[in-house]
């Protein structure tokens, strides 16, 4: 995988996520564009590059959220493991594959985020007390919204696949 192209994608997708999210949100649920990039990398890249690439996307997202650090890195690492196991059995460029993988990846991420919210609810400030635990409705809306966008976003990314050199590493028999 060409890491320069990867970093440009990561930069753009995190920038768009923090810049566009409030304008495309539906009932408070904004789509997770970074997750779509994670699915794209996990579906197409060689195993080791995909694992590291997805983990780093999560790490980058952790740096620009108020969530506990490590949460997205951990989630996207698991997503990468999940998607990589399906690499051989799915038709990578089919919109239905994009939808179903984004849905599964979103559900996994949402489950981790909800579990984290329940185990470690936010601490209220400036008054004392515990914050409200996150509701599942908004998270599920976000998952569905992201999955519906997946065929469009991944369809666009598919056209730029050659820029990432996903197959170069495989032919030479090394990860990157």
């Amino acid at each position, binding site marked *: 995988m060409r890491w320069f192209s990867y970093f440009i994608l990561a930069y753009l997708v995190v920038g768009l996520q*923090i*810049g566009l999210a409030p304008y495309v949100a539906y009932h408070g649920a904004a789509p997770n564009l970074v997750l779509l990039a994670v699915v794209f990398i996990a579906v197409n890249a060689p195993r080791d590059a995909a694992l590291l690439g997805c983990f780093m996307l999560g790490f980058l997202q952790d*740096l620009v959220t*108020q*969530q506990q*650090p490590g949460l997205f890195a951990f989630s996207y690492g698991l997503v990468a493991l999940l998607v990589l196991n399906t690499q051989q059995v799915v038709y990578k460029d089919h919109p239905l594959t994009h939808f179903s993988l984004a849905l599964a990846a979103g559900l996994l991420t949402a489950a981790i985020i909800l579990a984290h919210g329940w185990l470690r609810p936010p601490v209220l400030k400036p008054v004392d007390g515990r914050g409200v635990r996150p509701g599942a409705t*908004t998270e599920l809306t976000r998952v569905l919204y992201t999955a519906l966008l997946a065929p469009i976003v991944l369809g666009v990314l598919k056209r730029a696949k050659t820029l990432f050199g996903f197959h170069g590493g495989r032919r030479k028999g090394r990860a990157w």
Partner: protein
Amino acid sequence: MSQLRFHHVFYVLMALSGIVAFLIPGRFVERYQPRIEILFSPVARPAGVVGRMITRRTEGTVVPANDHRLDPEVRAENEALRGEVMRLNARVAELNRQQNELGKLTGALRELCKVTKVIGFDSGNRDSISISGTSFDGIKQDMYVVINGGLVGQVARVGSLGSQVKLVTDPAFGVRVKFLRFDKEFLMQLPIAAVVVQGIGAGRMSVTQLSLANIGLDANLKPLDAVAGPIVKEGDYVQIDDNECPAPLQGLKVGRVVKIGSRRGARLYADIQIEPITNLQRLPEVMVMTRER
């Protein structure tokens, strides 16, 4: 030859991130977390500007769903508000004159604040915004963030490359408030003690400590007194009444009641949902209160 394989490194990274996310308390981790928001502003800000332009054209003025007032009524209320502002300004001036020390403390809120640009919204599922103000601008953790229309939130994390503001609608934000109503032309404080309003995410806040009887409703959400109606109703305002907040913030608008229901799991308690007056996630700039006097 080293037996270390890539997947060993990956699983160590995963274990570390899992430990940091689930086991280590947030207040320890936050200290070492770098803030890099400003690096993304070349993409995030133009994207936000485009988003703002498109939504402004497609949405027009956002009118709350429960706001059925006609234009003349709104104009009349505006006039009443102007009168009220004038009255309050005169009152503040009088108090300043009477108490010189207090006079130093108050003054226009804007003078105590530093204007800073908003870079973008939270990339995760929390209600926060990234701002371009940094520790070099004198911004510190827990400083309050305001706009002319009311309270925005509180600085959660500060770094040399940007800061993060937790919005009033974030589940980690709570503040004591009191309820107010504009009854025709007059501002009326509702007979309810100050209560904690806390964020519940998705752009909303909620008050859950009051029983339905406290706000004049029965278990079926019908008014106890059919003539006087409920004590709190949709459209009422909430404003800060919290000793923990700096004096210039007292009385600042926090939001407006949009829905009253009964609390899940405690049917005799009210769940009063409140929304900020403006969409806090779409603000182009905010003011950080860097001084309290």
